[in-house]
């Protein structure tokens, strides 16, 4: 049986990669993809604990996380399309309409 630390380290690596992607990239599509990476890291941790504790609640919560990810992707991509229609760009540095 694989120890739970393996899964936790994998989740930590994927989460950190997602954080670095959100902080460094300028393309808004890649920022949204990095958020999906972070949600996957959370799911790995939830299911690892669920499997090792013999308790199914973690898997149900992973389903809810996937639901929230789907809703977030739908709304986020709607915002991207609306913004591209107005500004003709995918670069977040040019999207500063509400910046003081």
């Amino acid at each position, binding site marked *: 049986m694989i120890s739970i630390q393996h899964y936790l380290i994998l989740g*930590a690596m994927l989460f950190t990669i997602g954080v670095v992607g959100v902080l460094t990239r300028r393309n808004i599509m890649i920022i949204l993809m990095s958020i999906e990476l972070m949600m996957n890291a959370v799911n790995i941790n939830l299911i690892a604990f669920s499997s090792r504790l013999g308790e199914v*609640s973690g898997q149900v919560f992973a389903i809810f996380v996937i639901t929230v990810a*789907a809703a977030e992707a739908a709304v986020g991509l709607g915002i991207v399309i609306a913004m591209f229609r107005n500004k003709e760009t995918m*670069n977040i540095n040019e999207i500063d309409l509400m910046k003081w």
Partner: protein
Amino acid sequence: MSVELILFYLFAAIAVVSALFVITARNVVHSAVGLAATLLSVAGIFLTLHAEFLAGVQVIVYVGGILVLFVFVIMLISVERSAYERQFNRQWAVALTTSILLIGELGFVLWRGNDGLALAPPVGPVESVLGVTGNSQLVGESLYGQYLLPFEIASILLLVAIIGSVALSKRKTQPEQP
């Protein structure tokens, strides 16, 4: 080394390498392909944890739904110009500090909590305890029993997301020119 461990290392290596490819690729479509590889290998990781239902949900919802939505939006908006621009922000110092702090924090938690993570093995397979068979039935009984109210709230969340995305991406009707 058992077969299980070899499979775990294979899927984990694919997941991490293609996640790095997602955040470094120049073309957005290449990022989407890397994300597909990551999501599929995370589904494989779920299989090594004996969460078969979640592996199926991962493939169907993430790869078949969310990722296809991403690819559609990439097709709708032009990518030719953005591939030749500068790809990274000038805030690498902030990103480096944050990621080092995050890795340090997670590593510290794993290092100090190592004893607490030596979990007692579950008392036999879960199926035999509850008298049901299979991972899907187990998840279903929990989802429609104990977690029925959160399930209904999640459906309302999806409805709100549908309405919100339609309202956001709808083209405003132009007033008629006289």
